[in-house]
């Protein structure tokens, strides 16, 4: 009995880990909103229960930590209502992708600046 409970709990852990990370996908949130899941009280309570993933001992398993921000926003009814609009989901998607590119852009800029500096040094030495 004990073994089966553990297996069941482990499976539940895996499933909840997957599901909470799916919340990082704004298209999936739009999908859930359009099918009325956000109006279901039980589902809203489930979202509140999922907040345990913010604890460090659970958060370290998240590959997409941005899902926690979405989870926090989902606690607000206004946000849940807005997600029915495809435009809202599209906007969030675009902003997410832009933010995702922020570091690589910054790195490219730094590399360019470094290359320019080196070029200047070479020309000044000559």
């Amino acid at each position, binding site marked *: 009995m004990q073994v089966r409970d553990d297996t069941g709990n482990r499976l*539940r852990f895996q499933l909840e880990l*997957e599901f909470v990370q799916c919340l990082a996908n704004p298209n999936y949130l739009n*999908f859930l909103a359009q*099918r009325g899941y956000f109006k279901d009280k039980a*589902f809203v309570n489930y979202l509140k229960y999922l907040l345990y993933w913010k604890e460090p001992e659970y958060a*370290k398993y998240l*590959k*997409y930590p941005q899902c926690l921000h979405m989870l926090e926003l989902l606690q607000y009814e206004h946000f849940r209502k807005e997600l029915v609009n495809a435009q809202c989901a599209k906007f969030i998607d675009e902003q997410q*992708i832009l933010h995702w590119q922020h570091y690589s852009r910054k790195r490219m800029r730094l590399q360019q600046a470094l290359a320019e500096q080196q070029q200047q040094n070479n020309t000044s030495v000559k």
Partner: protein
Amino acid sequence: MKLALDQGKIHHEMQLLEKVVEKRDSDIQQLQKQLKEAEHILATAVYQAKEKLKSIEKARKGAISSEEIIKYSHRISASNAVCAPLTWVPGDPRRPYPTDLEMRSGWLGQMNNPSTNGVNGHLPGDALAAGRLPDVLAPQYPWQSSDMSMNMLPPNHSNDFMLEPPGHNKENEDDVEVMSTDSSSSSSDSD
């Protein structure tokens, strides 16, 4: 005449005493100012010390080994989960969140499709379901963290999420199953 002289003397003494009283008054006021200043300085110092103690306590509570932080940051950066790959261009299917394909290939998607052996053979998740998956492909989507999570259990929760205060009944897998049923059918794509 003598009375007038006496009055004069007393008046003179009174003036002297008034001067002394005035001087004492100004001394007391000076002391009051200094005490007030000292109180202000001490209050500031005590407040700052309390804030410092609070932040020390906070830091102690959240203490994590630097190795673990480095490991985690490497994990989320190397998989391009938080930083776009340098070669990313519009049209690249990679995203900062799990895509449709990843969602369907995971445990949630598999729960709904127990009998799709070889129907969509090109998907690694289905190959896993069919038991034909070689070991090297097993952690195809590390976001599922199958090997790391074996010792981890979720917190207890009530069977019915309609109740406000959570009890400690058996796990509720019905909610999860309903979601995976719908998510494996066409989810809204805006790509």
